[in-house]
């Protein structure tokens, strides 16, 4: 174009020494990044915090135009769409009633069986202020950070399903690694058979299903939810629908990061199980080890007539622990408790935590108010 008439007047290789130095520096930076060098992450979080107003300001008109464009497609079928939504709403109301009834029944059964409660999760609401789609990373930026008690590792979902996980949290912003990202690996289960697998992101719209359990018979249209294995995500969160193509089984995600707006950032809390006493150990219980003398139990009150003996906490044959089923009421689907949920977690679980949304920081008292 314009560079056809230049004369060559500068010797070659004059920048060799600094080039060698910066090349070595680049390799050092690469290795430091691989070793999760913290200052780089801190700098990235601080920079995003600093740029938050600009990102938010620029994102507003972009989202407005995108929304308008997507809305314009449906302009001519508003009436039929309205009719369809009315019918769907009526159907969903029926399902809601059935779900409420079943949830109450599950609670009663858990109480009767002195069952280990499902892990609880609290959440804060955040807003997507940025979306970075790069060749090697798929991320979004949220307007909530450590000041809103957002921490790396927490699950991010919108009304449709799981979007990803927080991997970097600044004071006012947080970066989310999406399920579609190359590095995303999430344990999932395929319903209804609860087949375990790993959802592996590959920077395409539909992540692949890997490490499927042996003997699993998968077919198109099956629902995929989080399994909760590893204790990273709450179990039962909707992820997507299974389908098969030439490369294998993939999952069409429910949530669309491109149109995601308001999201929930879920803090997955696991119940801290009481440490087993000597009497709980199998060897002691079987009489192989002498058990220390047990003090006489306090006078027990007989259960009222009509109440089965198993309903009494002490009668359940456990440790006499208070039934924890009454303390938590997860609003998430799926009640299977994975083995990992029994591992103690150092974080203190607030009283009566439930899955609630609120725009401000988490407060256990507010949680109770919302119930």
């Amino acid at each position, binding site marked *: 174009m314009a560079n056809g008439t230049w004369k060559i007047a500068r010797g070659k290789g004059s920048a060799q020494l600094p080039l060698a130095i910066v090349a070595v520096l680049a390799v050092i930076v690469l290795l430091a*990044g691989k070793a999760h060098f913290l200052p780089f992450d801190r700098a990235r979080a601080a920079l995003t915090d600093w740029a938050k107003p600009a990102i938010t300001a620029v994102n507003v008109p972009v989202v407005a135009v995108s929304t308008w464009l997507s809305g314009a497609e449906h302009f001519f079928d508003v009436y039929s769409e309205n009719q369809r939504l009315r019918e769907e709403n009526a159907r969903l109301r029926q399902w809601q009633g059935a779900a409420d009834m079943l949830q109450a029944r599950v609670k009663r059964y858990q109480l009767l069986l002195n069952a280990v409660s499902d892990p609880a999760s609290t959440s804060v609401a955040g807003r997507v202020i940025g979306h970075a789609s790069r060749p*090697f990373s798929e991320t979004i930026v949220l307007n909530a950070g450590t000041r809103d008690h957002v921490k790396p590792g927490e699950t991010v979902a919108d009304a449709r399903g799981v979007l990803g996980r927080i991997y970097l949290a600044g004071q006012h912003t947080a970066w989310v690694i999406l399920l579609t990202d190359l590095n995303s690996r999430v344990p999932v289960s395929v319903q209804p058979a609860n087949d375990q697998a790993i959802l592996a992101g590959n920077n395409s719209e539909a992540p692949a299903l890997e490490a499927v359990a042996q003997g699993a018979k998968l077919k198109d249209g099956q629902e995929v939810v989080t399994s909760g294995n590893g204790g990273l995500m709450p179990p039962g969160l909707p992820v997507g629908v299974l389908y098969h193509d030439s490369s294998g089984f993939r999952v069409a995600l429910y949530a669309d990061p491109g149109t995601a707006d308001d999201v929930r950032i879920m803090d997955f809390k696991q119940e801290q199980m009481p440490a087993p006493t000597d009497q709980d150990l199998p060897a002691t219980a079987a009489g192989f080890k002498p058990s220390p003398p047990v003090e006489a139990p306090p006078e027990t009150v007989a259960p009222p007539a009509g109440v089965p003996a198993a309903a009494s906490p002490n009668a359940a044959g456990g440790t006499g622990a208070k039934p924890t089923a009454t303390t938590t009421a997860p609003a998430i689907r799926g009640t299977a408790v994975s083995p990992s949920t029994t591992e103690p977690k150092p974080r203190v679980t607030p009283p009566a935590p439930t899955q609630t949304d609120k725009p401000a920081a988490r407060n256990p008292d507010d949680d109770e108010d919302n119930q």
Partner: protein
Amino acid sequence: MRRTSSDRLLVLLPTPAVAIIPALFAFTAVVLTSFPVSLTGGLFPPPLFVLMVIYFWALIRPDLMPPGLVFAIGLLEDLLSGSPPGLWTSSFLVTYVLIDRQRDVFAGLAGWAAILGFALAMLIASVSAYGIAWLYFWHVPPIQPLALQLAASIVLYVPVLSFLNWVQQRFIGPQRSDF
């Protein structure tokens, strides 16, 4: 420094200000490329504006685009884009080495050949980034997003080149050949 008759049309800036212009454009390009706002809803990755700036000034005024500046630009790109630290830094430096070694060839290109020259530089940067990402993540990254970015960058290089040429002639003036 030899002055030409066209210098009368220039807004000649003092040397420090001239030295800042490529850096300023490069950092603006990084922000444009890495700003976490997608005009296409995440369907297409943004074009690599920053490599256009590096390529342009590394060819015609390498004294204004030294390796240290390329390193800083790459680091900022990694920082803002959420990429692994050093990924684009290394890729830009590999491309810079190519330009530095073959400057005579690249600088002699004109017309569509000049676009092909940038396409080659872009290809080198993309292949480097792909290889580094492969080693870094230990997964085979998908080619499609990178190919889309490559195509978008080459297409947009035509208007960007015109603009950079205008800036060069209007504010910086002398080219490498004038020394």
